[in-house]
């Protein structure tokens, strides 16, 4: 084995935080090396230092045994390093091909799209990626956008590929495909740095380096440790990897909080996104929503929170018809929404944590003093939530785009959990969270259920849904294909319903 890339005592600071401290890390040729650690442990920062996007303050980098300095990503790209960032860096209005080509040639004035098209086509063949090169990126599903990001790195001839939580936005099937592609890359001699919070993925890699609070805890081979030991290395304590089954009070659940009948919705391009959706969620009940992403989940969440108005159908919250009302009225009536796209829909990236924590609820009496915001009060509340949700941030006014991905997600969760009081709508709430936080979030959701909230929970982790939900509704093509009891339903049965096979409603 030869070491291809190595860091020696690498240190990177941001104002008020040490993101990486004396990190010693090495990547062998042809290995899949996983970076594992809590939200905010410094995984993305380390990757960006390896990619030349950030310049470390201390320590050094070695490439093939020679010391190197990457002054910009260009140097790293020349050295054969490619990176897929945690959040997409795409131009939605460009085509797939334009996104891949832009900024790649340094000489000449021509676009060279024809030549690029051939190279992209052959890359797609090589890795069995199926993409229309002339499609606009804005029209692609999230999963497909991830292939575009991977192609961007491969197109530049990467020998070392850094993948920062590539599967966070993928469906389980897409993740499996991604892993086939990754092992193919490995066969071709590429070396891969993979960041993931998902234990199955971590256990598939060749070596794992665990980071905690910016420092390396250790590097281990997955064969030699158990998942439990790994998580203990990560957080320094034992955590429950799976939520324990703990059903709600069936009696309470009889009293409906949310009743939805015959809901249909067409999007601006006239696609039927919701088709006669009928659902009921009772007091103290968690209704799981399973489905392949893009089958109407997003629209359902948006209708239920008043963001979009359904074409037909009705929404009744605690006995009151509310369809067609503006979303503020939903919030006033105690509906909380955790959207699936955190930076686009859940946060204002340039605003501070405390401002983001009251977004939408800024008119609330607690936060105002006459026409003014009561900053002192907001600050105290925000600090309480930062502690409670263990958000890692230098201060309550840190802009959320300076937070690690998982910590940004926690800001949304904290906001929606404290402000809602009847209905909690959570679309992929654990996306990008580390296992310790997932455990915490699930406990919170269960606590809310026990307080009598009705909860709608969508997740791509079917096993989690089976463990948490009192009932599971499966959505496919905008229709509810079945509502099942998780006690006596298997993942396979749900899989069939997700594929569109219809089951007569269990109710």
């Amino acid at each position: 084995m030869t070491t291809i890339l190595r860091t020696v005592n690498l240190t990177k600071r941001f104002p008020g935080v040490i993101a990486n401290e004396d990190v010693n890390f090495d990547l062998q040729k042809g290995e899949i090396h996983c970076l594992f650690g809590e939200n905010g442990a410094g995984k993305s920062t380390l990757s960006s230092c390896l990619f030349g996007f950030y310049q470390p303050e201390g320590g050094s980098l070695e490439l093939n045994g020679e010391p190197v300095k990457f002054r910009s990503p260009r140097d790293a790209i020349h050295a054969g390093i490619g990176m897929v960032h945690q959040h997409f860096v795409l131009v939605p209005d460009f085509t797939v091909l334009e996104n891949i080509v832009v900024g790649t040639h340094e000489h000449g004035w021509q676009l060279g799209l024809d030549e690029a098209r051939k190279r992209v086509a052959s890359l797609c063949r090589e890795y069995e990626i199926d993409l229309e090169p002339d499609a606009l990126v804005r029209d692609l599903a999230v999963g497909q956008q991830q292939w575009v990001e991977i192609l961007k790195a491969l197109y530049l001839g990467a020998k070392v590929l850094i993948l920062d939580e590539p599967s966070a936005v993928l469906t389980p099937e897409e993740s499996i495909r991604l892993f086939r592609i990754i092992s193919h890359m490995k066969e071709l001699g590429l070396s891969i740095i993979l960041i993931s919070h998902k234990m199955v993925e971590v256990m598939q890699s060749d070596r794992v380096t665990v980071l905690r609070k910016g420092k390396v805890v250790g590097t281990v081979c997955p064969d030699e440790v158990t998942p439990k030991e790994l998580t203990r290395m990560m957080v320094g304590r034992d955590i429950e990897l799976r939520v324990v089954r703990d059903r709600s009070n069936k009696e309470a659940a009889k009293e409906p909080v949310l009743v939805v009948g015959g809901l249909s919705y067409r999007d601006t391009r006239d696609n039927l996104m919701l088709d006669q959706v009928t659902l009921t969620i009772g007091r103290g009940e968690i209704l799981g929503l399973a489905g392949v992403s893009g089958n109407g989940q997003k629209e359902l969440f948006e209708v239920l929170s008043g963001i979009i108005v359904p074409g037909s159908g009705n929404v009744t919250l605690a006995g009151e018809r509310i369809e067609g009302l503006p979303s503020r009225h939903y919030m006033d009536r105690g509906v909380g929404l955790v959207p699936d796209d955190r930076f686009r829909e859940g946060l204002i990236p340039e605003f501070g944590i405390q401002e983001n924590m009251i977004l939408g609820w800024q008119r609330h009496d607690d936060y105002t003093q006459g026409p003014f915001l009561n900053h002192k009060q907001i600050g105290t509340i925000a600090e309480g939530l930062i502690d409670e949700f263990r958000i890692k941030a230098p201060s309550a006014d840190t802009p959320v785009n300076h937070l690690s991905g998982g910590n940004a997600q926690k800001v949304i969760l904290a906001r929606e959990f404290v402000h809602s009081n009847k209905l909690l709508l959570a679309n992929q709430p654990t996306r990008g969270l580390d296992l310790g936080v997932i455990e915490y979030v699930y406990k919170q959701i269960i606590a809310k259920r026990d307080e009598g909230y009705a909860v709608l929970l969508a997740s791509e982790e079917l096993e989690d849904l089976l463990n948490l939900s009192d009932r599971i509704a499966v959505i496919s093509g905008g229709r509810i294909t079945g509502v099942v009891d998780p006690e006596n339903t298997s993942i396979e049965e749900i899989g069939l319903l997700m594929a569109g096979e219809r089951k007569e409603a269990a109710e």
Partner: protein
Amino acid sequence: MGELFQEAILVSILAGMIRIATPILFAAIGELVTQRAGIWNMGVEGTMLMGAFTAYFIATATGSVWLAVLAAMIAGALVGLIIAFMTVTMRVDHFITGLGINLLVAGLTLYWFRMYIKGRAQPTFDGFDNVAIPGLSAIPFIGEILFDQRLLTYMAFAAVPAVWYLLYRTRWGLELRCLGENPKALDIKGLSVSARQYAAVLFGSVMTGLGGGFLMLGFSDRFLADITAGRGWLAIVALIAGNWMPRGVLAAVLVFALLESVATHVQVLGIDVPHQIFLALPYLASILLLMGLRRQSRQPQRLGIPYFR
């Protein structure tokens, strides 16, 4: 009114439209490039005024209109350099920067102008002559309108397809548009965002300076305070109304120019409408247009937002 007379008026209005469109077109096409790169430059009016004053100064001092044109472009570049420094390097708010530039230039040019003419009669110069294109200009009607214009007018109109080609058919254009949509996508490929934004602001400002130069040398023989009279703002409005696309911008500029040309002919036409109404029409027209276009805006996503890593 005789038929001959009516046709003569129509030719005069349309030829006037083409001439009036020239300076606005220079500025709007330049600003198109700047905004596509993500810089919302509000200093067009000031840059144009600077170009106009510089052209006047050099034309009267040297007697050479072409030297004056060159000087107007250089003056535009200098103003552009300040704008780029403020918005790209210092990351100052784009609007504040532009408004500051406008106030500064308005004050400076007036001061310089007073100094220049102090104690003497205001010097004048001989501006551009028409250059009829042999053959084409002989075509009846069309020829008189389109092909008997100043040299710079032909250039302004040629700039539209040229900039279209630059934006959509060259590597630079792709990178430029990327800056306006998501500068990070270039940054992670190791390309300098600021170098490219500087280039885009400079290009836009040189074009705007040129527009100011033409305004001076193509319409008049002497400088007046605030000679641009809102044409720089019109260029920005044309850009918005034209939905940030070259042909849209061209169409919007032509409509504005037509309205202004009609306004200068109201007396001959015997229409009893106050001149001011015509001056307000371009703005009104674009507001209406914008309301219709709102849904499919091509405004660059990151326009006017300073880029931080």
